[in-house]
């Protein structure tokens, strides 16, 4: 992680150096995009969210508290932006389709692909709060403490959401594997 460097870059941005912000975008575009992608599932939506997050970050850099880690701040914005997006999309057919359980294939040769699909589908059925914890733990490799700081929730809640989410994913995967082997 580049914590001290990030803070120096933020300070340079605040002094009007847009190149410093470009470095931050370079550094965080992949995790921000991937967090959004795992949260909302569609590439186009993830791209929109990533753009919004970076612009909001830029507009609010003066509110960034250097006591905290920059990645934690921008990841939180990404999660919040994704959850807001999901709230807005809830009523749309697109979201219903994305959240609907997928039919696992009975073809054994497709088992791996089915498992992958089942996992993505199960991720889509998790509540946004639970999904956020899974995304930060498994895709961004944050510790319980870092997730708690990022989401501004107690570590106990992080663990509770993470354990619940894993159990739900495990159930979905076990079921999918069982069906594909029948």
């Amino acid at each position, binding site marked *: 992680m580049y914590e001290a460097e990030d803070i120096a870059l933020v300070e340079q941005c605040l002094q009007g150096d847009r190149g410093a912000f470009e470095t931050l975008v370079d550094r965080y575009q992949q995790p921000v995009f991937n967090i959004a992608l795992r949260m909302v599932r569609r590439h186009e939506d993830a791209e929109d969210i*990533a753009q919004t997050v*970076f612009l909001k970050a830029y507009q609010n850099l003066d509110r960034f508290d250097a006591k905290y880690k920059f990645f934690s701040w921008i990841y939180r914005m990404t999660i919040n932006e994704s959850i807001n997006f999901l709230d807005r999309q809830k009523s749309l057919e697109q979201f219903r389709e994305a959240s609907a359980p997928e039919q696992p294939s009975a073809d054994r040769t497709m088992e791996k692909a089915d498992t992958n699909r089942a996992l993505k589908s199960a991720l889509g059925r998790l509540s946004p709060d639970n999904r956020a914890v899974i995304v930060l733990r498994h895709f961004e490799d944050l510790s319980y403490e870092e997730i708690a700081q990022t989401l501004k929730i107690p570590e106990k809640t992080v663990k509770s959401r993470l354990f619940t989410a894993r159990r739900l994913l495990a159930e979905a995967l076990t079921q999918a594997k069982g069906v594909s082997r029948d």
Partner: protein
Amino acid sequence: MINKEYIELMNRDIDGVISPADRTKLRQFLDASEEGRTYYEGLVLASSELSRLTPELPPADLKRSVMAQVSAYHAGRARYHRPEHNLVDRLFNWLAAHPALGVTSGAVGGALATIIITSASGWLGGPSLVEVTGTLVRQGSPNQQSLVSCSLSAGPTSAVIATDRAGDQVVMRVRINSDGTTPQIRLTFDQSDLSLDRIFEGDRPSAAVDATPGVISISPASGTEYSIIFRDRSESVSSIHVSVSDGSFSADQDIATGISVRR
């Protein structure tokens, strides 16, 4: 029913944050409990499948898009802070203090102010009181849904416009905000390929719209939302020209319909 303590130990083991003593305790539990083993195997499966989802590369132009928006944001702020904004008040104050100049009506004064501001901006090389910001365009094939959105500001009037495309249907949503002036939105499009299907004001069909072939003019109340639905017979129409005017100023922009990329 598995004791919460063991569920925590299983998860800590998967996360690699378990002490040797706790690991031994967990092993003893798993050796003795079939239910525990099944539960643990499920968690390991979920965890390993998650680790197989590799990170995806962000779109190649994401950074460029972000930096373009940062530039647009700066341009907007620069305009917002320009002293020219105060010129209107200063001009009217000046006109009010000099009735001998013969300017007796606000309309005449407003027109004069517009001319002077426009001229002054031209002379000074500065901006007018018109801006187009936040255009966000996504590339996509005609059969993919795409979205564009932008904000057009003309003096105290602004419009937020977003477009969705699904196949041959293009839906343009417009919301206008104004501070009491009578704004007008005008959409101009190539009628050889694009035809107006329906217009909704909120969720009701709207009749209060002046639509002639290729041109739609709307004079909405502030806060009104319109959904304008077009049919794109060729699925190739790339943009609709939108202008927003408050009588004194106007801003205009080609809004992409989801095929072409314009920034």
